[in-house]
């Protein structure tokens, strides 16, 4: 686990948050000794939270793995129902958003206010593009009666097992999308705060910590894409 860098710029004494924000000086809550401790605690808190997220998605990945090994052919057939081009495009979009997110964190560290807001907005746009494509894919499944439990018509062999695959497909991608939507909301708040000049080289923890979250959500997709789209054996 990487240790958060300590900032030479951070003054050791506490300042009232409003004063500190107005003057771009690091502030810290009463339970912490100094801004450095607060920054480290926030960072570690996010890493710990992401560990719980790994286990949360991990339960689903475990279920997926069990059924994939039991029903290999059905899962391959199910995978072929997905549009691999759209999945690949979305993967590129998400990787791009990770880049803009990393640049946003860097801009916050350097105190470049406009660049920070710009990169945060770009990240949000890319995230929204991803969600739009995902929404189109869902719509396509509805049209083709491939929604498990609600509207599922499939006349090839192993229909229940293919339905099970699509069940995991919908649930895993939807859970991922929910994380994306939460992330976009957080980035919007950060962009607003950044525009108001709340961040400085001495205080940018929220940007860094939210960046960790965003990268995590991207990494989940990096696992979802091959497991859902590429196992069909078409290529």
């Amino acid at each position, binding site marked *: 686990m990487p240790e958060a860098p300590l900032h030479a710029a951070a003054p050791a004494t506490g300042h009232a948050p409003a004063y500190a924000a107005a003057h771009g000086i690091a502030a810290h*809550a*009463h*339970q*912490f*000794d100094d801004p450095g*401790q607060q920054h*480290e*605690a926030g960072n*570690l*808190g996010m890493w*710990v*939270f992401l*560990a*719980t*997220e790994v*286990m*949360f*998605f*991990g*339960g*689903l990945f*475990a*279920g997926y793995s*069990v*059924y994939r090994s*039991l*029903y290999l052919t059905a899962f391959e057939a199910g995978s072929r129902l997905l549009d691999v081009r759209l999945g690949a495009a979305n993967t590129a979009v998400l990787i791009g958003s990770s880049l803009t997110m990393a640049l946003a964190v860097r801009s916050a560290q350097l105190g470049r206010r406009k660049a920070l807001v710009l990169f945060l907005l770009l990240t949000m746009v890319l995230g929204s593009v991803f969600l739009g494509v995902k929404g189109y894919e869902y719509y396509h499944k509805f049209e083709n009666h491939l929604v*498990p*439990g*609600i509207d599922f018509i499939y006349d090839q062999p192993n229909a*229940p*097992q293919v*339905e*099970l695959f699509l*069940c995991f497909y919908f*649930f895993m991608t939807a859970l991922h999308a929910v994380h994306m939507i939460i992330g976009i909301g957080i980035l919007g708040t950060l962009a607003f705060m950044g525009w108001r000049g709340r961040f400085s080289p001495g205080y940018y923890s929220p940007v860094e910590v939210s960046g960790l979250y965003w990268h995590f959500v991207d990494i989940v997709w990096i696992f979802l894409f091959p497991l859902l789209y590429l196992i069909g054996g078409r290529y």
Partner: protein
Amino acid sequence: MSVIPAEQLMDKRVHYLNESYGVKSWLFTKDHKRIGLLYLASITFMFFIGGAAAVLMRLHLIEPQGALVEPETYNKLFTMHGVIMVFFFLIPSIPAVLGNFLVPMMIGARDLAFPKLNLLSWYLYMAGALLTLSAIIAGGVDTGWTFYTPYSSVYANTHVMAVAIGVFINGFSSILTGLNFVVTIHKMRAPGLTWFRLPLFIWAMYATSIIFLLGTPVLAITLVLLGLERLLHVGIFDPKLGGDPLLFQHLFWFYSHPAVYIMILPGMGVVSEIIACFSRKRIFGYGLVAFSSMSIAAISFLVWGHHMFVTGQSIYAGLIFSALSFMVAIPSAIKVFNWTATLYRGSISYDAPMLYALGFIGLFTMGGLTGMFLASLATDVHLNGTYFIVAHFHYIMVGGAVMAYLGGIHFWWPKISGRMYSDGWARFAAFVIFIGFNLTFFPQFMLGYLGMPRRYAFYPAEFQVLNVMSTAGASILGIGYLIPLVYLAYSLRYGPVAPANPWGARGLEWRTSSPPVTENFEETPIVTAEAYAYDEGREPLA
């Protein structure tokens, strides 16, 4: 030892309890001590609801054909008892009450790292608890606390969803508590408080938090899958639709076996504190006791399959799960031997907390050893699904976890409330609980060995004598649990004012006044020794 002589200032002194008044000052508090008390009130309420269900069950079983309720109602009673006691009492008990109160104080911090998340975790607990209670009032659930499919997916009524959502929400309360503890313990220790000077209670809380963090999300996702299966009628766990009900059991026990250690590890931490204090000795084998907490947490994630020996899982999986389950005995035994060695040649005093701690050691040992019977494949086939299991886990969870919880409440009550309770009544209650407990559950070992299955509303007539004994014990136990409620409440108003350090203990939490000020210490303490520096002999009472 105290920083300021509390007893002289008691009346005028400002502390966390009288710093502000009114409902709002409690409902919006971010003080870890007040949040601990919010938890104390709520889990005590849940404990007596769950206990009432248990008393009704025992009264019903006083006659072989059942004396009180319809079999369907009986199913709902044991489900309600299990769900409430496991998720809404035992799991939050020591971490959320004593842990919340003590973790910052024991490490010399002003609060937990994330006070708002801490308050949020209490609200999540309350939301989960109220949803579960409302589902019980609306008609109850009869799946057992394990929500096994297909009981829960195909055959149960709709209230099962409300209870599952309640448990799901409550899970996030556990996660937030664990996250707060881990970050606080890592980042907020007072100057000089190295890892190996930490109180063993902190080690126990750290190990427990890891289980909270890594186990609870898996339960959460499992309940979501269960909900999807019910809502959309897809076959995740339904074999008719291609699913596998055993997957549910695997996922469920992946959390719920470690959850057993969520219940017992904090108790072990409490007992380590009490035993050292009332033996006036440094804890024997400090490093081993600390590491055994961590290794119990680690191994706990590898043994879930011992709940599934008779489900048809592969024999090789069974063998491995059996061997790994036996391994849990090693760190557990390390603890018991180290406590015993601490007692050896200590100058022991039998104050009420010590009686609970000694009760814990005996009952936990019984529970642990009978666990070995169940970890062995061959004996488990005979004992699985009988009252032997019921007796075994109640020795761990009630004889172990609840005894330790009560011991901890008695040990830290002067710190929490600033008042002393009646030691005579407290010792009396400890005896009543110990006797009532054993009379309730020891006969159940015999019943289980003789083959009486659990979760039935009636039984063959030849089992009646042992069942009547068990019911009699439950009545005594019920009264035993009511006694502390009375004298602790009484002490709040009429008890003598507690000094800062009534037991002459050495932990940091005793170096501040009773009750502490809002930010715990007048100034951040500097630590120069470990929490068990008792070797200079007993301190005079402060």
